């Protein structure tokens, strides 16, 4: 234990030292109250370290590392699940996107929210009853074929990497924009911090850190929306919507330099009127079509979000940490309520940005592509400053860090579990002891962190926001149909599961290649590839699954018994 503590303190020093140097270099240029922001970030670092130290005392086996000993109360898992799902994109991006494009962007929030219904109704209970350490392990428990483990492990690594890299990149960019901190040092610092609490505390430390981060993020949003609603919206939601009908979307107003100059120093209410007078025929922030492309692209996105959430490995493994199926369902229910309130607040906050900071939004956008990014990421923080001063702005920035940490840590432990349990233990060293397996998981955590940092640095100049959508698309196409059929359909065969997973992966890869080669506007049978592989991937994967199940016979060792276990009556 003392050794652990020594390592933790050493790593803390390594982590904090660059932050202090960065703070010193960024202090002159940043408009934000740097000491307060650093204070909040250090608070998070210290809380994480204390939680990690506390949880590391009880981490003795692989079960403790992978699934926190399967005894975590449902309330904590529900809150942690909320934290794991709420990334910086949810906290800053959902409202910021509405602030830039208007009404078209409300489906960013609603889309993310809707995913958990499939998880609750179709996956959570039976998956928990099957019980395993990983998603691949759960599928394999019916068919007992290592190739299934390999296929799903591959999907897990791809999905998690696609999800993780934008988180790291977002963190680096956020601090570069906000505090002028060095991008590389920020990503390395975050990578190190996550390694600390995954390596020393395993799933339990990850869960408890996610709980703290989720509560902080949720609390920040609650304070921010309450203050903004009464200070800026004057307590009348419908009035805010009415005003939005007059607003020229900042994306359009920001391209007109005369408007930009005319409204730069005006109060928001007046700026909205002046912009409308100068651009009387422009679309309004309540016009549909400023951003949304085709209906088919929308359907594909929605399909990816709904079925993708139910196939995201870092969400699914959380069900293995609770003691029963009923607890798993309750944790998802709590998560659905918390997420719903959060995303609803994000939508309202998005519309409140117009009466709150309209001239600032337009000025940002007038700076071109970089300005659009600034507006999307900084709008919520600017609003925090407007309604709560530097303290709330600093809390908001810390909230964004909390969001990034909680999501990224969940992804990293998922990859570590999958590689050590489904690849190393199955294909490299079948006789591996628990200690060896744990060591591989920890090495994987370090490697994954390094890879994510390198990819984030390498892809810094690219617009990779669509990677998250692709992660959802792959999860929906490759994991969900196989998982759902395995849990609910007795006639699903081993060959069908493998064919379905591979089909989902192949369709997704085709979309990724086309996205890189031809751009987001390129269409396949009317569907722009920018809409993601969700629609075609899920349909193709499901059709292949049904056809192969009909043509083959191997439904697993004892499908009746498997179904009986998966759907046993709930007990607490």
């Amino acid at each position, binding site marked *: 234990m003392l050794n652990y503590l020594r390592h933790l303190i050493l790593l803390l020093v390594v982590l904090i030292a660059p932050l202090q140097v960065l703070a010193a270099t960024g202090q002159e240029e940043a408009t934000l109250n740097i000491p307060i922001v650093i204070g909040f970030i250090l608070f998070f670092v210290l809380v994480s370290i204390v939680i990690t130290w506390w949880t590391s005392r009880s981490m003795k086996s692989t079960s403790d590392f992978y699934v926190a000993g399967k005894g975590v109360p449902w309330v904590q898992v529900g809150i942690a699940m909320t934290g794991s799902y709420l990334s910086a994109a949810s906290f800053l991006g959902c409202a910021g996107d509405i602030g830039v494009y208007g009404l078209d962007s409300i489906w960013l929030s609603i889309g993310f929210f809707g995913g958990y219904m499939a998880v609750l109704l179709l996956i959570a209970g039976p998956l928990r009853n099957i019980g395993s350490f990983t998603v691949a392990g759960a599928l394999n428990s019916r068919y007992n074929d290592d190739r299934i483990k390999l296929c799903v492990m591959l999907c897990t690594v791809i999905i998690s990497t696609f999800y993780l890299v934008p988180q790291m990149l977002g963190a680096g960019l956020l601090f570069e924009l906000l505090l002028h901190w060095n991008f590389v040092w920020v990503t390395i610092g975050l990578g190190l911090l996550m390694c600390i609490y995954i390596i020393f505390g395993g799933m339990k430390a990850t869960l408890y850190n996610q709980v703290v981060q989720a509560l902080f993020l949720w609390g920040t949003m609650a304070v921010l929306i309450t203050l903004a609603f009464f200070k800026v919206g004057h307590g009348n939601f419908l009035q805010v919507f009415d005003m939005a009908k007059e607003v020229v979307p900042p994306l359009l107003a920001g391209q007109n330099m005369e408007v930009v100059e005319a409204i730069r120093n005006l109060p928001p209410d007046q700026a909205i009127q002046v912009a409308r007078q100068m651009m009387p025929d422009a679309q309004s922030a309540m016009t549909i*079509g400023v951003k949304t492309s085709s209906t088919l692209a929308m359907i594909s996105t929605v399909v990816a979000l709904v079925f993708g959430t139910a196939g995201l490995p870092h969400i699914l493994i959380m069900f293995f940490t609770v003691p029963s199926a009923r607890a798993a369902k309750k944790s998802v229910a709590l998560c*659905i309520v918390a997420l719903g309130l959060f995303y609803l607040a994000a939508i309202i906050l998005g519309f409140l940005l117009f009466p709150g900071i309209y001239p600032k939004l337009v000025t940002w956008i007038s700076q071109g592509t970089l300005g659009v990014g600034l507006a999307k990421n900084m709008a919520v923080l600017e609003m925090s400053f407007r309604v709560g001063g530097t303290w709330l702005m600093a809390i908001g920035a810390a909230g964004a860090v909390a969001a990034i940490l909680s999501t990224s840590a969940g992804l990293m432990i998922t990859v570590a579990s999958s590689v050590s349990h489904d690849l190393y233990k199955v294909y490299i060293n079948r006789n591996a002891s628990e200690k060896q397996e744990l060591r591989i998981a920890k090495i994987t955590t370090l490697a994954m962190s390094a890879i994510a940092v390198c990819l984030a640095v390498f892809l810094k100049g690219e617009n990779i926001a669509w990677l998250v959508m692709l992660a959802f698309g792959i999860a929906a196409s490759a994991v969900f149909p196989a998982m759902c059929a395995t849990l609910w359909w007795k006639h699903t065969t081993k060959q069908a599961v493998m064919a379905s997973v591979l089909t989902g992966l192949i369709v997704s890869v085709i979309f990724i290649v086309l996205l890189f080669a031809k751009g987001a506007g390129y269409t396949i049978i009317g569907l722009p590839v920018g809409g993601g592989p969700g629609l075609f991937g899920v349909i193709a994967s499901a059709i292949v699954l049904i056809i192969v199940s009909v043509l083959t016979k191997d439904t697993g060792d004892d499908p009746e018994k498997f179904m009986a276990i998966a759907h046993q009556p709930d007990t607490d």
Partner: protein
Amino acid sequence: MTPGSESNHVLKKKALFNFSLFFIFFIFYLVSACIQTPTFKDVASIPALGLPLGVLLSLLVFPVSWVIMIIWFWRAK
């Protein structure tokens, strides 16, 4: 009824209930999303309860989900 066929019957009933609720949610969710696209902008603009229909339906996704969730927990007891 043998124990095997009884468990089959229970599983089918459970599957029907869960998938039906999910289907109701998914259709509502999909329709609300599609209405918010340029193709259906005329329908989305119809005023309803002080809001455009598209916005109202989109925001209703939240309470509809919570109601479906409550029904599911209540019936699953």
